[in-house]
């Protein structure tokens, strides 16, 4: 087997994102030049070829697969992937399905990428919907909050699937052997919370996971549980609130202590790690779409070349550590214990 045949093959959506195609192609070329992956750019042939030429990339460095159409941000995702079957998102996803790529990375419409992945790659048996999650940078990097916005309305058993994905995440990414799982609620005692929490709690208790009960908002940054599950509505509100804290604290302190506002500004911008609080997927520029029967990473729409480079390498790592296989094995293990249907 040639060295090239052993490399992870990454398909990248050249047309998706605010800075496409230039930044996407630039990041892809950077990854290809590192030599650890085979990169395929999916998009309009002439546009991608011109960008590759501008990067000084030789024609054999990166393969191009032509895709006529582009899904535009704001198009209804489920409709878009049906009506634009020659879009870079659908064509790239199908490269993974057809065994021509191991990973798909896209900075295009998150909803469309998730819909295409669920439709063409399918879900891992036991996972109903794609989910995104991760740690909160700076203050709580070794926790996983799941879901962070992909599923705003959830059924109780979906929270169990998030807990399983979060457990695999904490084990494979953080190296925590038996991660604790909590459910985000309005009180620490069992029985507190909304209907979703009340209905999901017995399922989580009986799931075979290391469930520790309710987690309140003030427990998140304390790391009271390694994995914290909630519906995507709550998760996204918590995430956006967290992201706003650094900037708001800076503005407040500069107003309260105007004499030292230069120092405050310097501390927040240069010294303290809280100028931009976010979840790690956002910080790194892309995150794994969990639950899909294949490796798909969604990059931030405003991402730049370095984020695409990171997303490609993170996708390679996900293949190398067999993240999807780990998820399947965790579900199979829980089922073998009679814990899951």
């Amino acid at each position, binding site marked *: 087997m040639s060295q090239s045949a052993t490399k992870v093959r990454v398909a990248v959506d050249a047309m998706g994102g605010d800075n496409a195609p230039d930044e996407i192609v630039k990041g892809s070329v950077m990854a290809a030049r590192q030599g650890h992956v085979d990169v395929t750019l999916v998009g309009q042939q002439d546009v991608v070829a011109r960008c590759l030429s501008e990067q000084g990339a030789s024609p054999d460095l990166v393969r191009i697969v032509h895709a006529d159409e582009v899904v535009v941000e704001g198009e*209804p*995702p*489920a*409709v878009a*992937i*049906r*009506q634009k079957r020659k879009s870079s998102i659908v064509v790239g996803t199908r490269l993974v399905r057809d065994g021509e790529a191991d990973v798909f990375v896209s900075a295009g419409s998150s909803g469309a990428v998730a*819909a295409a992945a*669920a*439709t*063409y790659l399918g879900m891992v048996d036991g996972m*109903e*919907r794609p989910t995104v999650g991760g740690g909160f940078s700076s203050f709580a990097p070794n926790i996983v909050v799941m879901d962070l916005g992909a599923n705003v309305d959830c059924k109780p058993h979906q929270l169990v699937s998030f807990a399983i994905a979060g457990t695999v995440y904490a084990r494979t990414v953080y190296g925590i052997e038996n991660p604790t799982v909590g459910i985000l609620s309005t009180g620490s005692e069992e029985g507190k919370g909304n209907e979703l929490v009340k209905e999901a709690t017995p399922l989580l208790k009986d799931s075979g996971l290391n469930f520790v009960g309710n987690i309140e908002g003030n427990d998140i940054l304390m790391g009271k549980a390694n994995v914290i599950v909630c519906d995507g509505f709550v998760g996204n509100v918590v995430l956006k609130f967290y992201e706003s804290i650094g900037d708001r604290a800076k503005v407040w302190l500069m107003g309260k202590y105007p004499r030292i506002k230069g120092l405050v500004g310097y501390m927040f911008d240069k010294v303290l790690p809280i100028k931009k609080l976010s979840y790690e997927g956002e910080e790194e520029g892309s995150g794994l779409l969990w639950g899909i029967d294949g490796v798909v990473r969604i990059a931030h729409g405003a991402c730049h070349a370095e984020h695409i480079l990171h997303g490609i390498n993170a996708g390679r790592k996900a293949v190398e550590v067999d993240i999807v296989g780990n998820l399947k094995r965790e579900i199979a293990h829980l089922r073998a214990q009679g814990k899951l249907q």
Partner: protein
Amino acid sequence: MSVEEQVKDIVSKIAHIDKEIMSRDSTFKEMKADSLDIVQALVAIEEQFDIEIPDEEAQKFRNFGDFVAFVEQEVAKKG
């Protein structure tokens, strides 16, 4: 297995719907299937039967029975 049974199998698996509650009169709303469920089912059925279900036709489906009838018709055309 009949076309209807195959379609029912695919839709129930994708949308996590109990086959017992699926009838030809059931609407997708009644079955609590969302837009992603429907798109996943359409694509899976197109691939299973090697047919095409145009969006303009799919939008006319009032219930599960209309969906099944269209698939049966397309499968019959193929002989």
